């Protein structure tokens, strides 16, 4: 049994201005085992990116614990950690960003971009640096002779490879991929997904894979968490979640996937209305305004996130009685 590398416990993040407080991430908990890929899905604005940024501590969570098992065998709470230790941890936890066009500095050469994490963390000689960068570049499928060029000279897929090389150059153990393939063409997407899966095998990487594309998530993830309005509403092993969803929101999401087969007709379960304003979320279960199974209880009583089946967590009052449709 692989050890638990990351435990997210009751994490919340509130963005506040004078008038409004937006709970972008609301009391989210889950566990990640080493070598696993966890997919996080949900519509835009559901807080999946914010959660990812909290995990790499690009931003501070408002409350909760993020427990990380570091390479030295100790467990650190990334929320309460002194600066020096955090610097060490940062080498192990990296992030791949969404937009390969915006996440690379146009005024740095590819070599500078990939070597920056090394320069920031180690004192390496020029030739050592070059060697490391070259080896990682060829690993992700970038021709090392291109390293002197600037990002604008590369296509979207190649840029994403640069972003991946930058994340990998420090030999991280946990990588948060925030929509890492969403901006790419299907064929390039397939290349990058294969690359990520190969690298995972080779380096025993753990991924947190944030995406709104359910088919990609199904392909790459071992477990999937579904988020709605800042809350995790369902969390289960991938196959279980896709076949036997327990939350009505998951059911609706799955039914909206457009299947690349003209003989299969979509039978979408319509979601009424729009996502409610996160500054003023509904009472009771957050999803009740759009849920077709809503009863009185859902409107008033808060719902808790509980384990209904082994490893299958859900936040729904009616999880026991509903028989929801998954993808066959």
């Amino acid at each position, binding site marked *: 049994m692989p050890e638990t590398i990351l435990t997210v416990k009751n994490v919340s993040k509130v963005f506040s201005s004078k008038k409004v407080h937006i709970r972008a991430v609301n009391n989210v908990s889950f566990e990640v085992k080493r070598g696993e890929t966890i997919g996080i899905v949900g*519509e*835009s604005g559901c807080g999946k990116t914010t959660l990812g940024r909290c995990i790499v501590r690009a931003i501070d969570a408002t409350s909760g614990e993020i427990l990380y098992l570091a390479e030295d065998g100790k467990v650190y709470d990334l929320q309460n950690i002194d600066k020096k230790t955090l610097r060490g941890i940062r080498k192990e936890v990296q992030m791949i960003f969404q937009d390969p066009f915006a996440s690379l500095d146009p005024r740095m050469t590819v070599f500078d971009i990939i070597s920056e994490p090394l320069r920031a963390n180690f004192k390496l000689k020029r030739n050592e640096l070059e060697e490391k960068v070259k080896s990682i570049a060829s690993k992700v499928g970038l021709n090392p002779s291109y390293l002197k060029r600037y990002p604008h000279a590369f*296509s*979207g*897929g*190649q840029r994403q490879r640069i972003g991946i090389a930058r994340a990998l150059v420090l030999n991280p153990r946990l990588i948060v991929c925030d929509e890492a393939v969403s901006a790419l*063409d*299907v*064929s*390039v*997407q*397939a*290349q990058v*997904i*294969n690359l990520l*899966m190969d690298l995972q095998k080779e380096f025993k990487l753990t991924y947190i894979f944030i995406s*709104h*594309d*359910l*088919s*990609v998530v*199904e*392909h790459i993830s071992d477990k999937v968490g579904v988020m709605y309005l800042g809350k995790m509403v369902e969390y289960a092993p991938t196959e279980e979640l*896709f076949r036997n969803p327990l939350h009505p929101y998951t059911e*609706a*999401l799955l039914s*909206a*996937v*457009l*299947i*690349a*087969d*003209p*003989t*299969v*007709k*979509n039978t*979408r379960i*319509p*979601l009424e209305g*729009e*996502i409610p304003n996160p500054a003023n979320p509904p009472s009771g279960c957050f999803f009740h305004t759009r849920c077709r199974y809503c009863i009185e209880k859902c409107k008033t009583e808060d719902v808790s996130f509980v384990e209904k089946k082994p490893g299958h967590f859900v936040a729904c009052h009616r999880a026991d009685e509903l028989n929801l449709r998954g*993808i*066959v």
Partner: protein
Amino acid sequence: MVNSVLKVEDLKIEIKLDEGMLTPVRGVSFEVRENETLGLVGESGCGKSLTCKAILGINDKKCKTTGKINFSKDGSEINLLEMKKDSAEIRSIRGKNISMIFQEPMSSFSPLYTIGNQMSEVILLHMTKDKKKAKELAIEALRRVGIANPEKRYNQYPHEFSGGMLQRVLIAMALVCNPNLLIADEPTTALDVTIQAQIIELMKQLQKEYRMAILYITHDLGTVAQICDRVAVMYLGKIVEIGTVHEIFKDPKHPYTKGLLGSVHKIGGNNERLFSIEGTVPLAMNLKDRCSFYDRCVFRDENKCNRPEPCLKEVGKEHSVACWLYESNEPHEKEGI
């Protein structure tokens, strides 16, 4: 026989650059028929957007366009390419008979004017001079695409709408003059899955009502399977395969089409490695005189394929492919994608 609304013949686009002549579109021919949706599929840079912009005459001045774009208007065919850029003639067609929906709903509207103001602009230009009537028409169009409370929404600014809602407004605006042809350039790519499905259903339903032809550009094969009647696959500025959606998905012929379909993961399928097409799309400049897919093709046959580019050949009813491997009508030997 179903009437064709648009016939594109041997469309070529050239752009002169300092480094040489770029040919992003290299002889494209297809037709779009009444009440049908033709999908134009391909990776970024294959020339699909340029083709569509050429139809409306909104390409950059640097693009030198040749060929024929015949559009049937009131029973007669007119060649849109012969019209002067931005002449009154083409402007009377653009937005009225042919309209377009763009990829990013957020950047397709001016943030400075209300939705109503921007919608009436089209109506006042093409339909009526009466402002009151224009407002009525706009509100009616908004209601048709499922916008609740259109009277109030009419006076709101784009930032007050969500992405999905704004895409609906864009569709309403494109359809307000009852066009014969709607060009949709990746209208759902920027949207969430749930909204995406809604928009596609909406477009299907509106097509049923108005019998318009839709030219649907996308690289998402899921969308194609769900909305298109026929599909044209583009690679490096040429159509390499065209056929009905069922033919293309069930029995793809061109190695590129096979590759594209193979790289899509199907939910519920096994989680093996995805098939991916080696390499990247080359730059459409100084191309060698042989099949443009040669370098990336897994089925290439050095004796057969190292010849000047193949043309589209019929391989079945309404199914054509441009590949040397089908030249003798022999079935593919190496199957397996």
